[in-house]
């Protein structure tokens, strides 16, 4: 499903897209790549991950939950501070300037 234009996304920041009933956090990193994860912070239960700070940890692209700062890998969804906890990862791509994600 197409959610927004690529240019609508700020580099090094996330945005949230509503895909059906699913809240998907979409991130555009400094190198232009896109990542999509669930928007729900598994620790607080709040739908806020798209508002976290994007960065890297030992080269791996990450987002830090804005609630209590746990850091998640944008690639695997694993919480790097607590590897037993995961957030969902969704496929994402750009087609003719539009960002598309799939939650199937």
């Amino acid at each position, binding site marked *: 499903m197409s959610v*927004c234009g690529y240019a609508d996304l*700020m*580099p090094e*920041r996330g*945005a949230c897209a509503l895909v059906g009933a699913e809240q998907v956090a979409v991130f555009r990193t400094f190198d232009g790549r896109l990542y999509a994860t669930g928007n729900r912070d598994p620790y607080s239960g709040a739908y806020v991950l798209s*508002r976290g*700070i994007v960065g890297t940890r030992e080269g791996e692209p990450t987002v830090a939950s*804005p609630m209590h700062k746990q*850091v998640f890998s944008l690639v695997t969804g694993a919480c790097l501070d607590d590897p037993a906890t995961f957030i969902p990862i969704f496929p994402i791509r750009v087609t003719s300037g539009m960002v598309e994600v799939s939650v199937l």
Partner: protein
Amino acid sequence: MTRIVVVGHGPSAYRLVESLRGFTGSITILGEEPRPAYDRVALTSYLAGKSAEDLTYPVPQGVTLRLGSRVTGIDRAARTVTTADGEISAYDVLVLATGSAPFVPPVPGRELPGCFVYRTIDDLDAIAAAAATATAGIVVGGGLLGLEAADALRGLGLDTHVVEMSPWLMPRQVDEGGGAVLRDHVERLGLTVHAGAGVTEIAGPDRVTGLLKPDGELIPAQIVVFSAGIRPRDELARASGLAVGERGGIVVDEGMRTSDPSIYAIGECALAGGQIYGLVGPCFTMAEVAADRIKGGVASFHGADLSTKLKLLGVAVAQFGQMSGALDVTYMDPVAGVYKRLFVSDDATTLLGGICVGDAAPYDTLRPFVGKPLPGAPSDLLFTGGGLTLDLPDDAQVCSCNNVRAGTVRAAVLDQGITDVPGLKACTRAGSTCGSCVPLLKQILVKSGVPVSKALCEHFTQSRAELFEIAQVRGIATFTRLIEEHGTGRGCDICKPAVASILASLHNAHVLDGEHAALQDTNDHFLANIQKNGTYSVVPRIPGGEITPDKLIVIGEVARDFGLYTKITGGQRIDLFGARVEQLPLIWRRLVDAGFESGHAYGKALRTVKSCVGSTWCRYGVQDSAALAILLETRYRGLRSPHKLKSAVSGCARECAEARSKDFGVIATENGWNLYVCGNGGFKPRHADLLVSDVDTATLIRTIDRFLMFYVRTADRLQRTSAWLEALDGGLDHLRDVIVNDSLGLCADLDAQIERHVAGYFDEWRATLDDPDKLRRFTSFVNAPGVPDPSIAFVTERDQIRPVGVSS
């Protein structure tokens, strides 16, 4: 295979099982309490909000742990134990770790509902439940544990009394002089002390209504907590014919064996060398000795250090070594509430012990020297105890809880490359129990030449202060340039907001301009404070807490129209909660139009300058404190800093604005103003120190300007002014030198920087509303800008909204 059965699961049993790790045998633990062993030393923190899980020790793997099982009998011939519910366990080795029970003196009424002891988490739950409907509580016993219990009652909001038989408090740890100083401290905290007093009766009839003293005084109370000493739980040993001491305790030899060679006793139930040990350190040592013996070793227990350092009531009380000696030196300052006494041998060369009340610095530095040559003249040691950095001999005991010596800690640093306190805790156990030896551990780290890393995070090896210098000197205005030229990788949630703050202090640009926006924490990113359900709060600035009725009405109307929860904050202003991101610009449009501006509640920046009404209205006021507070708040609003900044101005020495708990606080005098700096409420309260006195308004402002800018430049990330001052080489005198006497030649620069800030200030929210590009981010969903987040829901409580539906 050896079958080990352990009776009791307290700290001693926990340490025993840990020390048996790797031993091939089966271990069964039968514990009477409904939960696994927990850190009883930290029991009181449970009432302060720690959970039972926080206190619980890691549950050992590969052992059978039966909780809620009280052992009722030992059959030594058959080598079995029986529990209350009839279960029988066979043993080859039996370890009794049954601890002790609080002693309840046989006074009439001691069984009434409302009487408690203070030993287990269940006891605390019961006390807390009873406290909900009580107004006053009494602790019987003014020893170490009694005062801890009293502090807990006070924390539960009760009017608290302590009844102590001896003429002074903590008679086992301090002498009469120390006791007097201690009493002052305790009474200043609002506790009532009845020393030299017994208990005639607990008054009833159906439940506790008070305590009757022998002098006829009745102290009314609904709760009585007995803390009149402990008695070893030796009832099982007694019933099965093991040797017990005349005054209780299971007799053990130096290998912790009882009179039956297949039964050991450890911890507070054991009578070792004719003594019961009521501190966790010796209990741990006993557990380790027993474990070693079970494994076939020859370790033995030869008594232990009974030094104590009280860690509560905000009063330092410490005792180490002997409490008497041929010679002694005493230092006493009743005004400051300090009492220190050292005992030395008759030739004045060997340190025997000491007592400290109000200042435990000598405990930290001198305890390891007990029994050793004095490291200096006794009086010097008493006066300079705090700043003293002595070289500890290798065999000096650093951590008495875990019996760790200086040599062991040093070896961990030098041979195993440990570089920080958490590392030392993991590797040597030192510091992991009561924590009172942590200052010594730090001292050893520093003395061993460990470079304490100042790196901000994995992306920058520099400290925040160094990055500030770099950005300033090189004129760097973006994160990208700073990390490309001076860091590695792409940053993280630690360095990005820190650099954003540095750039904001230096350049005064809008925090959401260009690439700055991506650096900000969610709070700065939405110029509002995130709440637990993902909504935000709105705090307009109300300088000095002064507000016109019209503006008050506007706030009320906005809150009503947007359905926001409304509360007066602790900072003399009003907070509106429960706004969704897409509502924030609409709310702020209304507020800005009515003349409000951002209160920076979300930023590491100036929060509030609180004020009292001062000389305008108050019959005691000597200066116009409200006017000054408004002037200061307006001058420094928007200044981004390493951590938040708070201030207050009081109109006279009565200090109604609480200025001395602030980063900078001003108190009016007949002749001008006194400026106090580096105070803190919060997690670690600190009273502010007097920096300059009786200055006029212009001098005051210039001094604050420089103080703030010097802090902004040199502090670490998230270091409040109080911690900054404590880490500053040379402390307050150095600070005064730099900003009053210009000893570093910095002042012209600091002045100029503040002037730039004041001249460049603009309201962040107004600027945001004027910029469609910045407004674009205020939506819940990029692909559905009008749709509110369906996960957010509220219910009504006390006529206002509160969040629901957030769960983890």
